[in-house]
């Protein structure tokens, strides 16, 4: 009797990583991002100065060996502040998108699976929310909640719900028509089981990609909110808040403006590279 050999079963994660490792740009994005996250976690131990330590002798000091990125208007070391700020900026993006996706996906799944009146009502409510330009919605929500780290996270989570819900719904509608769902229904699977173990796993790839891109976008929006004074407040070294404070000294000390902005740009770039790579790895159909 011939012996059957089976290919070693690989987890979905391993397959995706293998696919992605061929994509240099995506790997670069992953490298930058993981370095940033590790630096952010270790920030309290590796920053050369305390991020709130004021040294008036070094007010507006230019970048030098002792202060890599220079010092701000209160003589605080900008390098330490940017590094410590990564904790705030990156965590806001990741937490807000996670919460927003969880709620948005639940709403989208309910809407997409049940259809009919439920779908209709949910979609009309989302229509109303989407008629308000995104930034305006965030500004109003932030005004209601008040400034601060946690409130900014909540505002951004609420803001990202409708996009996620719509996207998952569209995926669900497409996926619902497949035979395997009919098969699951015919063996009397509960609706909950069909949604969670059959539909969701098949809709998840585009959601992961858009969540990755969403983190990038959220980091920018969070910085924007802090920039106009509605997000995280100084003296917390969030990148947007730092830029906002640096703005008034743009003439005498332009280096105050360079580094926090560069930090945002590099992070967003890395997330976009990673998102592109994930999209190609998860769904080869979308590749061009």
């Amino acid at each position, binding site marked *: 009797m011939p012996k059957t050999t089976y290919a070693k079963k690989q987890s979905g994660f391993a397959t995706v990583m293998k696919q992605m490792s061929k994509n240099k740009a995506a790997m670069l994005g992953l490298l930058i991002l993981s370095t940033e996250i590790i630096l952010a976690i270790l920030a309290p131990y590796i920053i050369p100065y305390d991020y709130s330590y004021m040294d008036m002798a070094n007010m507006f000091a230019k970048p030098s060996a002792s202060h890599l990125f220079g010092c701000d208007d209160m003589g605080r070391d900008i390098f330490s502040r940017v590094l410590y700020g990564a904790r705030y900026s990156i965590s806001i993006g990741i937490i807000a998108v996670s919460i927003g996706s969880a709620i948005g996906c639940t709403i989208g799944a309910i809407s997409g699976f049940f259809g009919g009146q439920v779908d209709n009502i949910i979609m009309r409510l989302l229509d109303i929310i989407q*008629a308000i330009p995104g930034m*305006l919605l965030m500004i109003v929500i932030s*005004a209601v909640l008040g400034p601060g780290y946690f409130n900014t996270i909540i505002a951004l989570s609420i803001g990202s719900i409708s996009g996620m819900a719509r996207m998952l719904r569209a995926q669900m509608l497409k996926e619902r028509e497949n035979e395997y769902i009919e098969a699951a229904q015919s063996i009397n699977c509960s609706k909950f089981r069909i949604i969670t173990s059959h539909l969701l796993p098949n809709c998840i790839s585009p959601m992961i990609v858009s969540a990755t891109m969403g983190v990038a976008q959220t980091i920018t929006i969070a910085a924007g909110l802090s920039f*106009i004074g509605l997000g995280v407040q100084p003296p917390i070294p969030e990148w947007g808040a730092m830029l906002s404070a640096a703005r008034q000294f743009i003439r005498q000390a332009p280096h105050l403006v360079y580094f*926090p902005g560069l930090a945002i740009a590099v992070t967003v770039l890395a997330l976009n590279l990673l998102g592109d790579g994930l999209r190609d790895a998860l769904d080869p159909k979308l590749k061009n």
Partner: protein
Amino acid sequence: MLKYVLKRLIWMIPIVLGVAILVFIMMTFCPGRPEEIILGPSATETELAAKRLELGLDDPIVLRLGRYMSDVFIHFDLGKSWLTNVDIISSIKERLPRTLMLTVATLLISVGIGIPLGVIAAIKQNKWQDSVCMVLALVGVAIPNFWLALLLVLQFSVKLNWLPALGIGTGLAGIKFYILPAISGSTGGLASCARQTRSAMLDVIRADYITTARSKGVPERDVIMKHALKNSLIPIITVMGTMFGHFLGGAMIIETIFAIPGMGTYIIEAVNSRDYPIVQGGSIFLAITFSFCMLIVDLLYAMVDPRIKAQYASGRKKRKVKANA
């Protein structure tokens, strides 16, 4: 076609009503007492109570909402600013054109540079021109527009003194006040426009009718411009629709940086001073503007794609317009 436009216009009514209710309810939950901000810290309790009564802040929320909705949608009156007592509609009339001017300028820059970049990248696929365009697009997405705004001000206003950093001007000279704001707002849209154009062109460029056009001797220029680009416009227009919303929202921050007295600065100042009627009225107007633009985008689809036009004309209900049908 006309029927479709009418249907869409009628559908905007519940949306605008919904936006008005939503923003009204959100604003009532705002922390901080508006009468304290209006009267300042020196006001006595009796003065504060009188102001509350005058503004009707002590009434139940349902009553206030009803009063507001009847003012706005029956008398077409958005009320007056609590702080300055200036009529809100007349302020919006003055400010909305500036925001629209900024948004349209931003859109023109994005499309005017984004589409050519995408076309070049697609024609020269996998060559150095392609790489350069796509790297530019990546950088464009990554740069936060308020940071770019600061860098541009630093370079062109502070160092070179070519362009004004703040405010607005009148007449033709006023255009130069919009150059830096429009450029700084456009990078994200420009980048997504370039990427979308590239992938849409690549989809189309391998189609049989392109080969046919080439084989019957149509000049390459015409093949690209008339055959390929025109057929890849639909996904690009979709991007433009969402871009417009982004720009309208993004204009709020850009206006703050460049001190342009548009809708963005109006609403943000009102948010900070708890001037609720301005936030509510401003949001309603921006939502209406946004909905109109989405309608225009949908009509543009019909202009570039006769198949969609035929669908509207036949008036078939509930037939979804598929972009890539």
